[in-house]
């Protein structure tokens, strides 16, 4: 990857206030995203994984400014989105789109497929009215739907087909970056593969850049060039996907990977699992020092005192006292 990245996130923080009582005195904050940094090159796919509540979806939304970040910078093509006034931000939005998890909830039931797919063109004034029909047909064909479905409503479709409509809508504005938030997890396995292949084809044809947020580690490995692992609002490890999956360094990544069942009984029989005890602590009051230490099988004295920074081991970054920065 050369040149400036399409997206560069620096120390992104998003806290949600917790109010107490009827008049809402601030009682604390859910530290959903607590200082993450990451960059994505043009045409690249970066996977963002973690368990529920780790902040991965909030991170995606904060990057797109759907939640305005509490602090930090989001450089898109060199421009800091966090500094843009709402009006300018709206103009920027056509360059970055989102595909949502639930194709049942994310499509307006009162709109036809044609209206849903054309909406971004109308909002961003991209295509003259007379040409919209042709552009909608072209987009539907691109995502593998027959142009004839344009006059139908979302409820007439299966989950996989609805997800195709959602993808066509995301493509309508000819974006550079698409944030995919669990795009296949609501779909049956045989349909998941159809959508994953479609996303890969579209990337190749249109040069798209993806931030692929998911909890399914196998799908993320398949589609991503690099993968970042989140735990309690932080990125704990980020590396090229084969390096991360074959040689995970962070104890949390190791546990996460060892917990994923592999569809091969010969392998499953001899697998050693790292079974984590307990549950994820509350993001309102995360543990001192390393946030994973309360569940970490290797926790040491230093872990409760010092928050480990993300240390760079020739491109493979990890935030753990077991792997301090080389020479640091």
């Amino acid at each position, binding site marked *: 990857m050369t040149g400036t990245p399409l997206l560069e996130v620096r120390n992104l923080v998003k806290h949600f206030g917790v109010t107490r009582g009827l008049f809402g005195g601030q009682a604390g904050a859910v530290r959903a995203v607590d200082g993450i940094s990451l960059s994505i090159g043009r045409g690249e796919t970066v996977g963002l994984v973690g368990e529920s509540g780790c902040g991965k979806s909030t991170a995606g939304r904060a990057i797109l400014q759907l939640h305005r970040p509490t602090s930090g910078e989001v450089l898109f093509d060199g421009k800091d989105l966090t500094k843009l006034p709402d009006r300018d931000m709206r103009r920027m939005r056509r360059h970055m789109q989102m595909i949502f998890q639930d194709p049942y909830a994310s499509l307006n039931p009162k709109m036809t497929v044609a209206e849903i797919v054309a909406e971004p063109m109308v909002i961003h004034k991209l295509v003259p009215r007379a040409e919209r029909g042709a552009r909608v047909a072209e987009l539907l064909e691109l995502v593998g739907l027959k142009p004839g479905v344009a006059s139908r409503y979302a409820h007439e479709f299966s989950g996989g087909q609805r997800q195709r409509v959602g993808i066509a809508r995301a493509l309508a504005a000819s974006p550079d970056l698409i944030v995919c938030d669990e795009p296949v997890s609501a779909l049956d396995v045989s349909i998941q593969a*159809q959508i994953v292949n479609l996303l890969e084809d579209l990337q190749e044809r249109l040069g798209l850049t993806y931030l692929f947020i998911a909890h399914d580690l196998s799908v993320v490995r398949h589609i991503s060039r690099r993968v970042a692992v989140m735990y309690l609002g932080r990125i704990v490890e980020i590396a090229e996907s084969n390096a991360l999956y074959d040689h995970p360094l962070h104890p949390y990544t190791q546990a996460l990977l060892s917990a994923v069942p592999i569809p091969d009984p010969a392998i499953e029989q001899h697998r050693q699992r790292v079974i984590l005890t307990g549950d994820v602590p509350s993001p309102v009051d995360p543990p001192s020092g390393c946030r994973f230490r309360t569940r970490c099988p290797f926790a040491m004295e230093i872990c409760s005192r010092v928050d480990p920074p993300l240390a760079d081991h020739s491109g493979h970054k990890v935030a753990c006292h077991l792997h301090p920065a080389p020479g640091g």
Partner: protein
Amino acid sequence: MATGPQSAEAAGPVLDVRGLTTNFYTEDGVVRAVRDVSFTVMPGETLGVVGESGCGKSITGLSVMRLVPDPPGRIDAGAVLLEGRDLLGLSEAEMRDVRGRKLSMIFQDPMTSLNPVLTIGRQIGESLRRHLGLTRAQARARSIELLKMVGIPHAGQRVDEFPHQFSGGMRQRVMIAIALACNPRLVIADEPTTALDVTIQAQILELMKSLQAEHDSGLVMITHSMGVVAGMADRVQVMYAGSIVETATTAEIFANPRHPYTVGLMQSIPRLDARDKARLQPIGGLPPELIDPPDACPFAPRCTYARPACLEARPPLQAVTAEHASACWFWDEVSPRRSLQLAAGASR
């Protein structure tokens, strides 16, 4: 009556389902949810039931429990023999004595299957008092033991708490405690870990495995995940459109799948340990309607092996070996390699 792990009739299956047929009578027509399904589960055995939404795997489980909502659902044919006794012939009152005592079920979503206004202790104690005649105090003491058994810390204190005070994984542990309270002969688990995170899933599967080994009960594990089945099941049956399309030991079905749908399921999922990024092989098309299905192979419209014979009659399960059966007319041609060749040919 002894409820210990040792079973007198250890030789026979704990569950023997024969020709089970469950239909739903809707305004649009008769939905053929479960079509002539037969299988057995031995004591101490885990049977994995795999398939996608709408394949009939959950309705099979509910039919065995006799919990199919009626109307619109109805079990129209078959027998469900639990230790030799046909549950379909029992009255509702007799069935209530069987559920929870001999036969219990663990559901996918522990939040909706626990009563939010009763303490955990009351909910575990309910079946202990009803089936085993324990007093309130005895039931509470036993509930605490059960909570300890499923790995809930501070069980003595948590027994008096309510479901909302437990995390998702802890609630599923409570559900397991309730299911195992009376030491049933058979447990049906319907996607027990689907709603849970992967590290919590590993905890729960580990727990279920060790408890089953201890109690020697039969386990029916209903899931959409080939990975879960690979690690948990002794035998696997794959369901599609209400029927069993393939059944074999776990090792055999993964090494030598003989139904195009089974092969398709395996090739459509990326593997965690796959270094190369070979293109996924999706199964084209969509699952069929279950209303008035034609007398044809239900998978034929999506099948790369399909030919005219497939549309003329529905193939029954045919023996591949003594322990392996496939509902495909052309099972002897089916292999993962052939499927890849056919897929490559079709896309050209």
